C-alpha cells in the first residue's frame, strides 16, 4: 500500500519528496533542492529555537538530499542536538544522520560520544539499542577509544536485556574488526562463550558471530566454544519443526544460527574429544541425510535455507579433511547439484568441489565428474558459472587427465570470453601442462591460436611475442617484468626461461621454469642466483639447486624465496651454465626482482594525498624525470601499468584529469616507506614528466628509474 507516511508522518518531508519526484529535469531538481537548503539554513539560523519535531523534519530532509547524491555541509549540530531529545523518533533521526554523514570535527565527536554515553547509561533498552547501533554503524577509532572498554561489560552483565546483549555483541564485533588493539581479551571472554548456552536464540546467534571473528586471532581463548557449539548444533539439527517456533524459517530449523555455528567450527581443527567428535560427525551425517529427503515445501526460501546449511556443512567437512566417509558423501551430494535445474546450485557445487579436489581423500571421487564439468564449460550460459568450471578443471587436473583437460581448455579458448582467456593462459603455464610432450606441441598451437584470436593477450603472460628462435633484448625483457609477474624472461634456440612470481608485503616467491627446447639432454645444468655484496645485505634470496640433467623437451623448475630486508637498487643476476651436445653454454640474465615488487597500493582521499605531498617537500625526497614516450600514450594502458607497478591509482586527485596520480607503501623487513607519484603526459610532444616523492632519496630515485622505462 503506498502509504504516504506511516507512524509519525512528517508531512513536510513527504511534500518535499513529491516535489523532487515531479521535477522534469536534473536542473529543476537541483533548483528545488537549493531552495530547500536555503530554507533549512535560515530556519536553523533563525531567532526562534526550533521545536524537536521541526528539527527532526529538517534534519530528515537534509538526509534525504544527501542520499540523493548531493553534498551537505551543515546540519550536523542540529542532528547532534536531536540525540539528547527524550523523544524516541527524534533521537532515532539524529543517530541516523550522524551515522550516514560521518563528520570528523572533534567538537562534534565529543558531543556525539557524550550523547551515546548517556544513552548507554540510561538503562532504557531502546535508547541503549540506538546508541549501540550507532557505534556499530560508525565504528570510528574515537568511538572505539571511548566505548570499547564499556561494551564487553554490558554484554556479559546479568541484568542486560536480550535485545541489548545482541546489539552489544555485534557492536563489539564491529569495533574489534576496525580497532582490534582496543578490544583486549579479558574476564569477559569466558562469559561470552557461555552465551552459546543462552535460552534466547537471538543472543546465541549474535554471540556466535562475535566468537567466530575473535577466535580467528585468539583461538586458545575461545576453544571451549567448540563443544558448546557442537551440542547446540546437534540440538537444532535434530529438533522437530515445532520446537524452535519463531526461529524456524520455512520449515528449516534456525538456519542462520546453524550456519554460524558451522562457521565457528571451521575456525578449529576436528575436536579432539572423541565424544564431541562423534556427536559432530552424527550431526553432519544428519544434515547430509536430510538433503536426500523430499522437501517439506515447494518454496525457494525453504530450499535455499536448507541448502545453505548443507553447503556450510560440506565446507566444514572439507575444512576438517579427516573423515573419508563424509568427504565422499559430500562429493556425491555436490555431484548431484552439478546437474541441478537451478543455476545457483550448479554454481555453488562447482565452487565447493574445487576445494574438495585438493583433499587426498576425495580427489579421485572429484575426478569422476570430469565429463559433467567439461559439459558445463561448453553449455553454461552464465560466464561466472563457466569461470567456476575452469577453476574446477584446473583443480582436478593431474597426470591421468592433463591431456584431456588441456585439450578441452584450448578448444574453449577459441570462443572464450576475454576475462576467462587470461585465466586459462596463466593456468596453462603450470608444471603438469609443461611436463608432458604435450607442452612442446600444443605450445606452438597455443601461440598461433592466441595470435589469431587476441594479439595483445599473446604478448602478455606465458607466450613470447616473437617466433621462438630469436634472442630478445635482455633489458627490454627485464623491464617488461617490472609491472607484471608472469611470462617469458629469456629465450634462444636452446632454452626458454619462464617466470611466475607472487609477492606479499616484504616477501616473495619466484618460480623459474627452464624449458629444454631441443631433443638433446642438457647436462650439468646449473642455474645460480648471484647478488653483489651491496645487494646481498638488502635482499635475501634462498634457492635450491635443480636436477643437473634436463631431458629434451622437458622442463625443470626452481623456486626462489625472497625477503626484502631494506630498499635496494640493483637486480640480482641469474647465471645458467650447462653442456649441450659438445658445447659449453654460459649465459646470464638480470632477474627482475625490483623494489616495486614490495610496493603495496594505498587508497587515499584527495585531501590526504596533498597533505602527504606537502610533507615530502624536502628536495632530497623528490626525484623527477622528463622523458620521451617509448610506447603509444594510451591512458587505459598507462593506468594498468601504474597498477601493475604496485601503486594505487587515485582518481580525481590531480586537478588536471589527464594526469595520473598514485600512492603506496614499500614494505621492507626494517621499514615501510610511503611513496607518492605523479605522471604528467604531454601528448603533443609525446613526452612525460614523472615525479616521485618518498621519504628516502634512494627509493625515489629507483622507483622513478623503474617506472620511467614503462612508458
Amino acid at each position: 500500500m503506498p502509504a504516504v507516511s506511516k507512524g509519525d508522518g512528517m508531512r513536510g518531508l513527504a511534500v518535499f519528496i513529491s516535489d523532487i519526484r515531479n521535477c522534469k529535469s536534473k536542473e529543476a531538481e537541483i533548483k528545488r533542492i537549493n531552495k530547500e537548503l536555503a530554507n533549512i539554513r535560515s530556519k536553523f539560523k533563525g531567532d526562534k529555537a526550533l521545536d524537536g519535531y521541526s528539527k527532526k523534519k529538517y534534519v530528515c530532509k537534509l538526509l534525504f538530499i544527501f542520499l540523493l547524491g548531493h553534498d551537505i555541509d551543515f546540519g550536523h549540530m542540529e542532528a547532534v542536538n536531536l540525540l539528547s531529545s527524550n523523544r524516541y523518533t527524534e533521537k532515532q533521526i539524529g543517530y541516523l544522520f550522524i551515522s550516514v554523514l560521518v563528520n570528523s570535527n572533534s567538537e562534534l565527536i565529543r558531543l556525539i560520544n557524550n550523547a551515546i554515553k548517556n544513552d548507554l547509561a540510561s538503562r532504557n533498552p531502546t535508547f541503549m539499542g540506538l546508541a549501540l547501533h550507532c557505534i556499530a554503524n560508525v565504528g570510528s577509532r574515537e568511538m572505539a577509544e571511548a566505548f570499547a572498554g564499556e561494551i564487553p561489560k554490558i554484554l556479559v552483565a546479568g541484568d542486560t536485556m536480550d535485545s541489548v546483549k545482541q546489539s552489544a555483541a555485534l557492536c563489539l564485533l564491529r569495533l574489534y574488526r576496525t580497532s582490534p588493539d582496543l578490544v583486549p581479551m579479558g574476564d569477559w571472554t569466558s562469559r561470552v562463550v557461555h552465551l552459546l548456552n543462552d535460552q534466547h536464540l537471538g543472543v546465541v546467534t549474535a554471540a556466535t558471530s562475535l566468537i567466530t571473528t575473535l577466535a580467528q586471532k585468539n583461538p586458545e581463548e575461545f576453544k571451549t566454544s567448540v563443544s558448546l557449539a557442537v551440542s547446540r548444533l546437534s540440538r537444532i539439527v535434530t529438533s522437530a519443526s515445532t520446537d524452535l517456533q519463531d526461529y524456524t524459517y520455512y520449515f528449516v530449523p534456525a538456519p542462520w544460527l546453524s550456519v554460524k555455528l558451522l562457521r565457528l567450527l571451521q575456525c578449529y581443527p576436528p575436536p579432539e574429544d572423541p565424544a564431541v567428535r562423534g556427536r559432530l560427525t552424527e550431526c553432519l551425517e544428519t544434515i547430509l541425510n536430510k538433503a536426500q529427503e523430499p522437501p517439506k515445501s515447494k518454496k525457494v526460501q525453504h530450499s535455499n535455507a536448507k541448502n545453505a546449511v548443507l553447503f556450510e556443512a560440506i565446507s566444514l567437512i572439507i575444512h576438517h579433511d579427516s573423515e573419508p566417509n563424509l568427504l565422499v558423501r559430500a562429493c556425491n551430494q555436490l555431484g548431484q547439484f552439478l546437474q541441478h535445474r537451478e543455476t545457483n546450485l550448479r554454481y555453488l557445487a562447482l565452487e565447493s568441489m574445487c576445494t574438495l579436489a585438493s583433499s587426498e581423500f576425495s580427489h579421485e571421487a572429484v575426478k569422476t565428474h570430469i565429463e559433467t564439468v567439461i559439459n558445463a564449460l561448453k553449455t553454461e550460459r552464465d560466464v561466472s558459472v563457466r569461470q567456476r568450471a575452469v577453476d574446477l578443471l584446473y583443480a582436478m587436473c593431474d597426470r591421468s587427465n592433463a591431456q584431456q583437460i588441456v585439450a578441452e581448455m584450448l578448444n574453449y579458448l577459441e570462443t572464450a570470453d576475454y576475462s576467462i582467456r587470461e585465466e586459462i593462459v596463466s593456468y596453462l603455464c603450470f608444471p603438469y601442462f609443461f611436463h608432458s610432450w604435450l607442452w612442446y606441441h600444443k605450445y606452438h598451437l597455443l601461440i598461433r591460436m592466441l595470435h589469431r584470436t587476441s594479439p595483445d593477450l599473446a604478448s602478455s603472460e606465458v607466450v613470447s611475442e616473437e617466433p621462438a628462435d630469436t634472442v630478445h633484448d635482455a633489458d627490454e625483457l627485464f623491464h617488461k617484468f617490472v609491472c607484471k609477474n608472469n611470462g617469458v624472461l629469456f629465450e634462444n634456440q636452446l632454452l626458454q626461461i619462464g617466470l611466475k612470481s607472487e609477492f606479499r608485503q616484504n616477501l616473495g616467491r619466484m618460480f623459474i621454469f627452464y624449458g629444454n627446447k631441443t631433443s638433446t639432454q642438457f647436462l650439468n645444468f646449473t642455474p645460480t642466483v648471484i647478488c653483489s655484496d651491496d645487494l646481498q645485505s638488502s635482499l635475501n634470496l634462498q634457492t635450491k639447486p635443480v636436477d643437473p640433467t634436463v631431458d629434451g623437451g622437458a622442463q625443470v623448475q626452481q623456486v626462489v624465496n625472497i625477503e626484502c630486508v631494506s630498499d635496494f637498487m640493483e637486480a640480482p643476476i641469474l647465471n645458467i651454465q650447462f653442456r649441450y651436445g659438445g658445447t659449453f653454454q654460459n649465459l646470464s640474465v638480470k632477474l627482475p626482482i625490483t623494489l616495486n615488487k614490495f610496493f603495496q597500493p594505498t587508497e587515499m582521499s584527495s585531501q590526504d594525498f596533498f597533505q602527504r605531498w606537502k610533507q615530502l617537500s624536502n628536495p632530497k625526497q623528490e626525484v623527477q624525470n622528463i622523458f620521451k614516450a617509448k610506447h603509444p600514450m594510451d591512458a587505459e594502458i598507462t593506468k594498468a601499468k601504474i597498477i601493475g607497478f604496485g601503486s594505487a591509482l587515485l582518481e580525481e586527485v590531480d586537478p588536471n584529469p589527464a594526469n595520473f596520480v598514485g600512492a603506496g607503501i614499500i614494505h621492507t623487513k626494517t621499514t615501510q616507506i610511503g611513496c607518492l607519484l605523479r605522471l604528467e603526459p604531454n601528448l603533443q610532444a609525446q613526452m612525460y614528466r614523472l615525479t616521485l616523492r618518498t621519504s628516502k632519496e634512494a627509493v625515489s630515485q629507483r622507483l622513478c628509474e623503474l617506472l620511467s622505462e614503462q612508458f
Partner: protein
Amino acid sequence: MIHFILLFSRQGKLRLQKWYTTLPDKEKKKIIREIVQIILSRNQKTSSFVDWKDLKLVYKRYASLYFCCAIEDQDNELLTLEVVHRYVELLDKYFGNVCELDIIFNFEKAYFILDEFIIGGEVQETSKKIAVKAIEDCDMLQETVEEYMNKPAF
C-alpha cells in the same frame, strides 16, 4: 560479513544504501555506479551471484526493486539470498504489501527496519516476530507522545 546493501530500481535509481565499512563518499558513489551497471546488465538465466573485486554480490529482484548485498568470499551465498528475503518480509509486514513508493516516502523507516535486523554487517535478529515487534513498539511510543503533545490546550 555484509559489506554493503544497495536497493535500486530498474532505471538505476538508488533507493537505499547501507554501508558496513568506512569508505569515502567519492568511493561509495563510484561503487554504486559500477554495481548498478553490472547487475542491470545481467539477464534472467544467470545465477544470483557475481564475483566483484574480492567480494561477492548476491542480488535478487522483487517487483521493481533490485536488492543487492556484497559479502565476503567465505560467507554463505544462499543464506544471504534469504537475508534479503527476510528484509523484504519485514518491510512487507510493516508497510502492508510494501511497494517501491513506500520505501521512497518513508526512506528513514526502511533504514530503521534494516538496523533492527542487521548490525555491523551481521544478522542480529532472525525471528520475524521479535524484529517486527521491536519496530512497531517504537512507532507506538512516538504516536502516543505526539498525540498527547498535540491535544488542544484549554
